[in-house]
């Protein structure tokens, strides 16, 4: 498989798997309870606290481990929602074309120009936030590019012989879309899952950084929000949580790019 020839993608994959393992095993890996107040506030990285402690004496390494868990849950969850909605909108638009296509694509274009981040900010501040709400909000505001991609793929696949063959033997529209076209469209969809997860992780961190994240869980963005006040005295409060976001996003982007390269020869960069 072409994926193996892509060194960056391989490194990215290893990092993603490792970070996912850390996130899943957070309860056993984290040396301290991320919410437990410690004795020494803002202590520099040491053997006891490899990443130091924050303004309430909480262990930053433990918070980063737990925060990574939240980031990945929100990222993967909302990426899945975006992809599913994108398919639900893009598939019928590309398959049936005609007026339905025009209508759905109009809607997609309208959503595409919406400043979604502001919309999320607004809805999150008015209605309050929880992890579930964040996943839903980020998920349902980021489907338009995926819908366009899926539509384009369905538009071309519906003209292929296997679709025609299925139609001639009397397979129904829904079955053709699900069993025949969708599996062939997946190579285009799968890389976006990885890239969208990366994007959603940044969005969640940005929201938490601005104070509209879920206040009841440890999140990397929220840690940076506090770091903004305390980093003059303690650089580690800003450095490590941000580094964690950066590494996970970088790895997911590497994987997404590599998957695009491997699965979509047409899109391959020269």
């Amino acid at each position, binding site marked *: 498989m072409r994926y193996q020839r892509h060194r960056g993608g391989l490194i990215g994959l290893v990092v993603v798997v490792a970070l996912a393992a850390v996130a899943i095993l957070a309860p056993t890996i984290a040396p301290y309870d991320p919410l437990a107040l410690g004795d020494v506030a803002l202590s520099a990285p040491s053997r006891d606290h490899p990443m130091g402690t924050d303004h309430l004496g909480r262990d930053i390494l433990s918070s980063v481990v737990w925060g990574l868990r939240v980031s990945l849950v929100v990222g993967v969850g909302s990426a899945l929602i975006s992809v599913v909605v994108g398919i639900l909108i893009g598939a019928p638009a590309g398959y049936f074309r005609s007026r339905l296509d025009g209508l759905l694509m109009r809607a997609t274009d309208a959503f595409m120009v919406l400043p979604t981040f502001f919309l999320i900010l607004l809805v999150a501040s008015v209605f309050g936030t929880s992890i579930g709400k964040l996943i839903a909000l980020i998920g349902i505001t980021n489907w338009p590019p995926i819908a366009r991609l899926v539509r384009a793929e369905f538009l071309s696949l519906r003209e292929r012989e296997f679709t025609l063959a299925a139609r001639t033997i009397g397979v129904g529209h829904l079955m053709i879309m699900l069993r025949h076209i969708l599996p062939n469209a997946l190579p285009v969809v799968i890389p976006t899952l990885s890239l969208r997860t990366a994007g959603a992780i940044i969005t969640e961190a940005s929201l938490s950084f601005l*104070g509209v994240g879920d206040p009841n869980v440890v999140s990397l963005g929220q840690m940076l929000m506090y770091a*903004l006040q305390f980093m003059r005295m303690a650089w580690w409060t800003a450095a490590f949580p941000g580094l964690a976001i*950066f590494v996970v996003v970088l790895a997911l982007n590497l994987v997404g790019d590599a998957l695009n390269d491997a699965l979509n020869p047409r899109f391959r960069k020269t």
Partner: protein
Amino acid sequence: MSTLGAYVVRRLLQSIPLVLFVMAINFVIIHAAPGDPITYLYGSSADVSAEQMQRLRQELGLTQPLYVQYALYLRQLARGDLGFSVINRKPVLDLILERIPATLVLMSAAFVFSVLVGGLWGVISAVKARTQIDYWVTIASLFGYSMPTFWLGLILILIFSLQLGWFPTMGMTTLGRERSGLAGLADVAHHLVLPTITLGMFYLAIYARLIRASMLEVLGQEFITTAWSKGLPANAVYYKHALRNALLPVITIAGLQIGFMFTGAVLTETIFAWPGMGGLTYQAILQRDYALLMGLFLMVSVCVILMNLATDLVYTFVDPRIRYTAS
């Protein structure tokens, strides 16, 4: 010219449903929010007297059917009334308008920075394709692409302000030492450096990747081979022939991105206490000033729609192949 005029008018008309759509979203949020919109928009009764609340209720027509309320809401917006911020004791529109210039300064600086530096990276990368330089530029742009804006800002402050003391950590001017004329301008420029890099880095990476891909595509075309065989110097081929054509697809993306730059501006302005719309947004979140947040969402949406419109128009000027008469 008349066809162009018609095109502009048609595109403007096409934008109207979009604006109405955004307004409808705002309207739905106001009414879906728990509780009475008045208490929601204007705070608890402690801030506003019962009498005032009653008057506001009547003004908004809250006793009437929803579609009448939406019409009233539209009429209110059409008069330039975006609501009133009780917390700031000012109309929302005034609050936003006084913050727009600082945001424009920051966004323009970041835009120019990202296009120039990103463009340069992209061109170098394409011209030196598959060399060490290309490899490192590609890695650098991947890093820039994956870097969370706000973390980059914090790191820049840590290194260049707190450690090295080269740049100020916050604000647009030196407080208490406001200067006018050239000195004042230099002061603003000094404050602008770190926020510009923070906001521009992501876009710089995008443009570098885009221009690289687009340049490579153009460089493979026949007219470039012709240019080479005419014996043109390399610079003429790269810049006069290739880059001009490679820039076309970039314009579309740039137009879309300018709109989304507002998101980055909120984060950047929050970090650097930049006195623009982003800082205002952060303030509105902290103070739970919903009227202001809605006004901001509306204004940013309108800006994005206008930017897209402007991009389309610029495109027709730069690319004569596009006819603005066809459907």
